[in-house]
């Protein structure tokens, strides 16, 4: 089995150039890109998540590690595509209509990309119809909704209602998050999952995608 210690270390320390160099070296040596993901990238990101949960890592370290893995994925995604291996899933992300905050959503997007998901980020103040268009165009499996304020979180329910009316609700999984959001709120509006933080989002999205 190939030695992935350099690549793992580069991801753990958030050193994107070193991660890309180590990945390129492994691929040049004939390592299968799937093995690279399964043996190096995924375990390293799981370790990053564990360190975050243990309070040893903080959000900046999460983001730097996610950026390193995202850049490695940019290198190997064409190779995975050649083998007909799709991304983990396509996720449409956005801050709901009326809300202009995007930092939390951006953190989730960065972590998901680092976890091998293809992320379609619609930005802030996104009306329900725009989510639907993106889901249809990109054939996304997951929609992530963000809101920061108690005054804007009702737009999540409205968005889900429009999904139901448009007939796409059964085809997608919806995860929600944001400062005022709770599991009970997610349950009350019929969302599939609630994520307390960006680190949790990857595991939740994997579960929703059935992976």
């Amino acid at each position: 089995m190939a030695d992935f210690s350099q690549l793992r270390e580069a991801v753990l320390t958030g050193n994107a150039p070193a991660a890309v160099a180590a990945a390129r070296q492994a691929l040049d040596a004939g390592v299968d890109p799937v093995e690279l993901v399964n043996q190096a990238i995924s375990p390293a990101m799981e370790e990053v998540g564990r360190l975050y949960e243990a309070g040893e890592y903080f959000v900046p370290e999460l983001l730097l590690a996610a950026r390193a893995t995202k850049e490695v994925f940019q290198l190997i995604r064409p190779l995975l595509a050649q083998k007909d291996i799709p991304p983990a899933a396509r996720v449409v992300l956005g801050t709901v209509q009326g809300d202009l905050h995007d930092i939390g959503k951006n953190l989730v997007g960065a972590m998901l990309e680092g976890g091998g998901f293809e992320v379609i980020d619609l930005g802030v103040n996104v009306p329900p119809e725009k989510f639907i268009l993106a889901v249809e165009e990109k054939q996304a499996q997951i929609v992530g909704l963000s809101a920061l304020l108690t005054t804007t979180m009702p737009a999540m329910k409205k968005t889900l209602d429009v999904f139901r009316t448009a007939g796409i609700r059964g085809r997608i999984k919806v995860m929600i998050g944001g400062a005022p959001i709770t599991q009970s709120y997610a349950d009350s509006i019929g969302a599939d999952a609630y994520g307390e933080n960006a680190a949790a989002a990857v595991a939740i999205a994997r579960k929703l995608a059935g992976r």
Partner: protein
Amino acid sequence: MSPARNDPKHVTGADRIPPAGETLPRLTIALQVADILRSLGYPREATPPARVVRSTEKILAEARPWLQPRGTYSLYAVTRQTAHSLEIGGATIAGNIGEFLHGADRIAVFMVTAGSEITRRAEACSRAGDAFAGLALDAIGSWAAEAAAEALMEQLNSQLRPGESFTMRYSPGYCGMNLRQQRTLFKLAPAKSVGISLLPSLLMQPLKSISGIVGLGPREIVGIHLSPCERCPQVGCHMRR
């Protein structure tokens, strides 16, 4: 609103309230890397990795010219006060404010902002895939708004009479003060004079803005009250005072 309140500077003596006030188109603020690191989630006792500290220092240095700290306040005499309401300038501010503002005979309604450029830059970094820089710039904008509020308080010192002090600052969204009170504050302070507007969702534009009230009164009465944060259950909040 009287025309005088749109002037860049409409200072009047306390004897002329209501309303007195001042618009400060350029506030001087001090930002420390340590504050930004706290805002990024590091507790005071944590030692962030050197690469995170270096990156944050670099981003802060780049960001300083993008900050446009400015603010305004209007000072009103309190005409009626209960534990859950305050009448100033013909308007009623509702909330769990009696405990925090007890003893204040004047209230300054203030608005400050760090400007919109810092948010534009943060969004651009995030769009370009640099989530860390986006987060750091967002944190810098938040701290700049906080620092602008502190700088405005310095200016408010001129309104204190001998033996007087301030209460803690208190903003819509704090414990016991509904966010809807934003609408009242925007009627009482000339927010437009510093380019702040209120959206239907009650968000302020620019996003890195703070609205609030602060009481002025005899030091021996107003100086001993609780911080609003002491009533808040979010004990781990990095903004806790």
